[in-house]
Every structure is written in C-alpha cells, then in structure tokens.
C-alpha cells in the first residue's frame, strides 16, 4: 500500500535542505538546511534496511524482546541491522558537524556583526 512513500519523503527532505543551503542568505538557516539534508540521508539509510514479513511488518533484530514466532523463522522476520548501525554513526557525524558550524557562525557574528552571507562576502572583499 505504501509503495515507496518513505523514499519520496527522503527526496523531499534532501531537496528542502538543499534549497535552504543554496538560496537562503541567513547563516543559521544554511546550517539548519544542512542538518535537514543530514536527517534525509539518515532516513534513506534506515528505509533501505526494512524487510516486510507476515501481516504487520518486520521485527527489530533484538532477541530479548522479540516475539517467539519471529525468533523461530529468524532471518526473514527481522529487519536488517547494518543500516541502523550506519545511521548511528551518521547521526553522531551530524552532531559533530553541527557543533562546529554553529561555533563558527557565532564567531562570524562577533567579527562581522551580521548573519547575512552576502553582506559578509561584500565586507570581506574590500
């Protein structure tokens, strides 16, 4: 029923984030745009690892709380674990890049007094 709705959501997030980075003039909005692209790509990684099973979908690959019939036919009933591990890494990368960019934006505001990238570039020219 839901065909590839998640992938359309992924593309929407990536394009919105790209729009914010390319066309917005405020520095903080550019940083927000990059984190939107980041979460879009993370969603793409997660949705690649989904596997449909039975009538109510795949089960998380954790054996402590998995229902008994899911554990019996184990590999087919469980969702792929590798993309989830990759997304963990990519989320932490997003946090690190965000922290660095925001500290640079604070310094740019202290030096140039404005958050508008066009004004900053003009001030930087002369």
């Amino acid at each position, binding site marked *: 029923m839901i065909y590839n709705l998640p992938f359309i959501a992924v*593309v929407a997030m990536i*394009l919105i984030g790209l729009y914010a980075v390319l066309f917005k003039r405020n520095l903080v909005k550019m940083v927000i745009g990059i984190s939107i692209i980041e979460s879009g790509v993370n969603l793409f990684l997660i*949705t690649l690892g989904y596997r449909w099973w039975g009538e109510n979908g795949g089960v998380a690959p*954790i054996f*402590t709380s998995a229902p008994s019939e899911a554990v019996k036919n184990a*590999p087919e009933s469980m969702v792929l674990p*590798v993309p989830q591990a990759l997304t*963990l890494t990519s989320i932490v990368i997003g946090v690190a890049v965000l922290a660095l960019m925001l500290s640079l934006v604070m310094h740019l505001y202290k030096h140039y007094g404005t958050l508008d990238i066009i004004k900053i570039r003009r001030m930087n020219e002369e």
Partner: protein
Amino acid sequence: MSIRTIVAIVFFSILAVFFVFTALMLSFGEPKKTDMDDYIIMHTQNETGTNSGVTTIVFDYRGFDTLGEATILFAAVSGVIMIFRRVKK
C-alpha cells in the same frame, strides 16, 4: 537574478531530477540481497554474546567505524574548545 542564483537553480534542478528518479525506481520493503545481514542476525548470540543485533555490529562486527565515530566526537569537541580558547573571565 545574479549569475550565482542562476547557477544555483540549474544545479538544484539537475540534482532534483536525479533524486526523484531514484526515489520512484527503488522498491520499499523487499531488499534484493540480504545474506550479510542474515549472517549477522543468526550469529550474534554465539559469536559475540549479545542479544541485540544492532549493538554487535556497532561494537564488534564493524567496531572500527565506532572508533572513527568516537574520534569524530573527540575532534569536534577539541575543535570547538580550540575555537573558543580566547574566552576567559
């Protein structure tokens, strides 16, 4: 409409076409090949002793990625401290 925005619009539209095409062509819910993940799901308990499939990958099968991730956090923290080093009372 400066040249910069025109170039940005062209770049944006090319990428938009690429991404929309990939989204429409991909099939959700039935991955083509899954043998690496099946191996991991079946061998988590007796090979690494954990019940959680994700944590075995994060710390044992692909532990080196997590070491890279820890260095990324370490680099970001020392980068931020280095950038704010002139902040004294």
